[in-house]
């Protein structure tokens, strides 16, 4: 009995250390944003946030391009989410419910896309975009991001459709409904939570994306926040508190929504690798 209790205490100490490592950098981002210059550059840095400095968040939003960045990121992320869900649902349905020639090839293709680095695809897409005037356009970013997140979205949705009992569909089919009607009326409402999770994945894939955005966008008014934030690296003019405040506001929604979608993300991604 005694040994068991010590085991629990030891385990809790271990867990606390791990959580400290996991959360500290984000905490430090927040604390740095809320530090005065004097605290920041003192011999002994301040270890807790100084809430008297909270104006830095307000100023970061009010002055400068932060709001434009966040708006552009939101536009790209919403577009990517909508397009990848619309394309992903039928793909997932085909993979889940039908056996057909070339199914293995489709699976392999989806795995292949996981191996292609964005940094490689950016060159051919650049010349394609130049021809079709998609450079300097948020639509261009939506199209490129969708290509990379679509396989993950489809695999998450496929996993969910696999779990829908076929009997439910068969009842509708006997009534003479077409396959698309069955999908939209029967499957989509049942897998709504998985669709929400896939939407979170797609949204934050686009929200975080950097390579395409930094290569395809030249107009500063169209920069998303990832590029804007990256522009702070090596630049001297902006106060570190402002940088950390913007970075924190950029991080918070991603972390909050991922905590909600985590279960589906993990199962979808591992399923993708297994099936390929």
């Amino acid at each position, binding site marked *: 009995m005694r040994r068991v209790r010590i085991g629990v205490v030891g385990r809790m100490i271990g867990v606390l250390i791990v959580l400290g490592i996991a959360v500290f*950098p984000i905490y*430090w981002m927040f604390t740095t944003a809320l530090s005065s210059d004097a605290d920041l550059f003192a011999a002994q840095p301040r270890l807790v946030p100084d809430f008297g400095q909270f104006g830095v968040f307000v100023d970061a939003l009010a002055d400068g391009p932060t709001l434009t960045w966040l708006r552009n990121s939101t536009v790209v992320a919403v577009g990517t989410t909508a397009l990848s869900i619309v394309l992903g649902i*039928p*793909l997932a349905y*085909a993979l889940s419910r039908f056996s057909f020639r070339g199914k293995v090839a489709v699976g392999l293709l989806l795995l292949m896309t996981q*191996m292609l680095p964005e940094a490689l695809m950016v*060159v051919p897409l650049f010349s394609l975009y130049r021809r079709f005037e998609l450079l300097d356009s948020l639509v261009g970013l939506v199209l490129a991001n*969708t290509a990379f997140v679509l396989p993950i979205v489809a695999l998450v949705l496929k996993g969910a459709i696999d779990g829908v009992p076929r009997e439910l569909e068969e009842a509708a089919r006997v009534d003479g409904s077409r396959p698309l009607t069955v999908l939209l009326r029967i499957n989509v409402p049942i897998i709504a939570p998985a669709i929400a999770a896939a939407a979170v994945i797609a949204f934050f894939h686009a929200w975080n994306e950097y390579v395409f955005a930094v290569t395809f966008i030249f107009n500063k008014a169209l920069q998303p926040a990832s590029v804007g934030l990256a522009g702070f690296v090596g630049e001297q003019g902006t106060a570190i508190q402002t940088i*950390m405040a913007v970075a924190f506001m950029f991080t918070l929604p991603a972390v909050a929504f991922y905590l909600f979608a985590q279960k589906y993300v993990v199962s979808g991604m*591992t399923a993708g690798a297994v099936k390929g």
Partner: protein
Amino acid sequence: MSAERAGADVALKRRRRSPLGSRWTPYVFLLPAAAYIFVFQAVPLVQEIYLSFTRTNLLNPTRSVWVGLENYEKIFASAGFQQTLLTTLVYVIACVVGAVGSGLGVALLLNGRFPGRGIARALVTVPWAAPGIATALIATWMLNAQYGIITRVLRALGVDVGESGILDNPDLALTAILATTIWQLFPFVAVVLLSALQSVPAELTEAAEMDGANRWWTFRVVTWQVIKPTVGLVALLMTIWSLRRFELIWLMTRGGPLGTTRTLVIDLYSQAFDSKQLGNAAAIGMVGIVIALIVVVGSRLVSRAAERGA
């Protein structure tokens, strides 16, 4: 296919008029996404393969000259590229070992009873959820040569990190990038392995312990056997992801100092957009893809052989 499924299919075939009877139905559902992936992934990939056999300048890409294998000969002959390959190898292996090792440790830690377990499991995923850009920014600040908290702590402990700071120190930059990458990855590994650990039958571990096996022995003969396929799968994912990781390294060091953190993807991007040599960049990219393919195919063969052996 199960007997009932086969029966159902026969029944469906008999009802020829049924909308599901058509053999084209799956392709109709497949078409939009397949066309999309074809245009935005397959076509660019083929173009990239073609580019790797040409001399093409970013500023004038329509005038490209077919040079055969010249780009490949050039990159393999260059000492810089050999360093890049070695760095990539070290980076990928260290990422996989570090992330899988620490992730497994954390999964074992979380796979027990203790108060606050649900909160702990959620909070541990924070590093994985944080955007890469934000991670690069906070890591760069924490490693700042004068005021970074990590630099300060290391100096207080008497570690010599050099005047110019960790990220500008050729001996330490790669380690710092690795630590940041592993911080980002370990939660994913931990969450996936935790769900695998929960499928280990409790009766088996209890039986082993009843038989007087110690914890390590129980882990090896029971737990490890169950989670082994998942560990392999996660290691494969970590390998593929690490081969293509870009923004974290690019933003923290741009491949420097002295090329010590220049992986294949960093090299290809700077060849394309700094040196404007699209042909070279494409050839470097192809080397990366071939490595990834070898890893994927190799791991399939190994897991097949393991299945047959078992």
